[in-house]
């Protein structure tokens, strides 16, 4: 399946209305489908959920579907560029070219065992053009309407910042939650800095369900990211450290919450995560 060049403006926005306002007597039009309790607890948020029915996309190095910690992979595609620079999305027959995507899929599976996992491989076609490939992969994921997209990656190229911003906003309004690794080096990088995504850094604790809301953004949450045992290529399990392993922990949590409350918007989901984080109301 060929996709248009990723550097051009994304497809036209949704229907344009004459006025973005609420006329008198139309309050029933904005009735919310989620019944909001007086107090948000972890039990309300994801108690009994396995992530069933939630479609998770892993934008990474591919996923080794044979790994016992990963289980069934719904679909696997790879993004590449034609010599003319056109992005092409095709079924991925190579699996994981590094191990990292498999690690992320395994973490999501451990948190939300019944979620549906799809792999989008944006690695392996060379460094040159990797920014275009990342954009094309993300655009495809947003168009496919995944519920959650795990992005343990970023770009430092300013030329991509504008289009990435548009894409992450579009995902936000289409109820696709993007969970992105924060960068812990002193450089500007994207898309984790955008407020329309959920950005994740690491804490050093060993509990996968411990996560903290950060009162000092742009990093919004800290999740388990140090010395994590993960799935790797070749059926291996290894121990890893990095924000890129904290990110799928938050992705897994998002899948759990959406499994129980599928109608939550990204804004509501982020609010639930805030209210249930370990330094806010997480003990309840």
């Amino acid at each position, binding site marked *: 399946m060929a996709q248009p060049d990723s550097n051009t403006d994304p497809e036209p926005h949704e229907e344009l209305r004459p006025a973005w306002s609420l006329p008198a007597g139309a309050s029933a039009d904005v009735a919310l489908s989620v019944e909001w309790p007086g107090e948000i607890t972890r039990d309300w948020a994801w108690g009994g959920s396995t992530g069933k029915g939630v479609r998770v996309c892993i934008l990474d190095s591919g996923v080794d579907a044979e790994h016992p910690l990963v289980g069934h992979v719904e679909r696997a595609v790879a993004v590449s560029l034609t010599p003319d620079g056109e992005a092409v999305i095709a079924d991925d027959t190579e699996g994981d*070219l590094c191990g*990292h995507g498999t690690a992320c899929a395994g973490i999501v599976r451990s948190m939300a065992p019944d979620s549906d996992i799809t792999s989008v491989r944006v690695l392996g076609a060379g460094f040159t053009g990797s920014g275009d490939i990342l954009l094309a992969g993300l655009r495809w994921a947003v168009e496919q309407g995944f519920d959650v997209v795990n992005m343990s990656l970023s770009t*430092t190229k300013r030329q991509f910042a504008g289009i990435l911003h548009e894409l992450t906003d579009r995902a936000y309004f289409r109820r696709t939650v993007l969970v992105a690794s924060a960068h812990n080096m002193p450089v500007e990088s994207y898309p984790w800095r955008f407020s329309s995504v959920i950005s994740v850094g690491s804490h050093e604790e060993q509990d996968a369900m411990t996560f903290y809301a950060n009162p000092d953004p742009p990093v919004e949450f800290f999740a388990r990211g*140090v010395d994590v045992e993960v799935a*790797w290529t070749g059926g291996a399990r*290894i121990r890893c450290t*990095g924000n890129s392993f904290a990110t799928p922990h938050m992705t897994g949590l998002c899948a759990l919450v959406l499994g129980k409350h599928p109608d939550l918007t990204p804004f509501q989901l982020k609010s639930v995560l805030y209210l249930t984080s370990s330094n806010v109301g997480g003990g309840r």
Partner: protein
Amino acid sequence: MSEELKAAVAAGVVGSQGTFRSLLESVTEVARAIFGAEAASIFLLDEETDELVFEAIAGYGADTLLGHRFPSSTGIAGWVLVTRQPLVIEDVTEDPRFAKDFAETTGYIPKGLMAVPLLHEERALGVLEVLDRPQRTQFSLVEMDLLGLFANQAAIALDLLRRARHAEAVLASSGEGAEVVARLATTVENLEEEQRDAALRMLSGLEEVLRRNEGG
């Protein structure tokens, strides 16, 4: 570019590659020592061939691996370069494919490694890897920060080396004259003060004679 400007640029460039390479080697040596690691390496991204090249190595492989190349977007180093995310992994020998890939590029299979992208402004220039630090305790985020500091230093050194190479290539392609002037300028620059003054007087005299000939 005027001849004068060319000579001035050349004076700054000739010989600087060696200095910047020494700086890179020094960064790998210090990284290896601070982390108590078996080896540390810096890979430079060759944008023309889309490959990663071993540019500086401390410890294992220092004699044999310099200049070795591999594709830029596969394996651990490739992932780190493309995603711009640092990564620490341990017990890697449990992954047979990783071990095989690594052995093919280095002849050495580490048990653990830390890899961090070398970023300068908007550019990803390469990757710094530290192999087999002693696994005394659980890895901590303080070590990750330390690795980031080394990466900053290495990225600056790598950027200088890249620029020096480019400048030398430009000078080389602009004719033999510029190179001779560059060498002469470097030699004069390195003289003791008294000798340098004498050399500059001689060169001024030479320049005057040449200009007269040019005019006549």
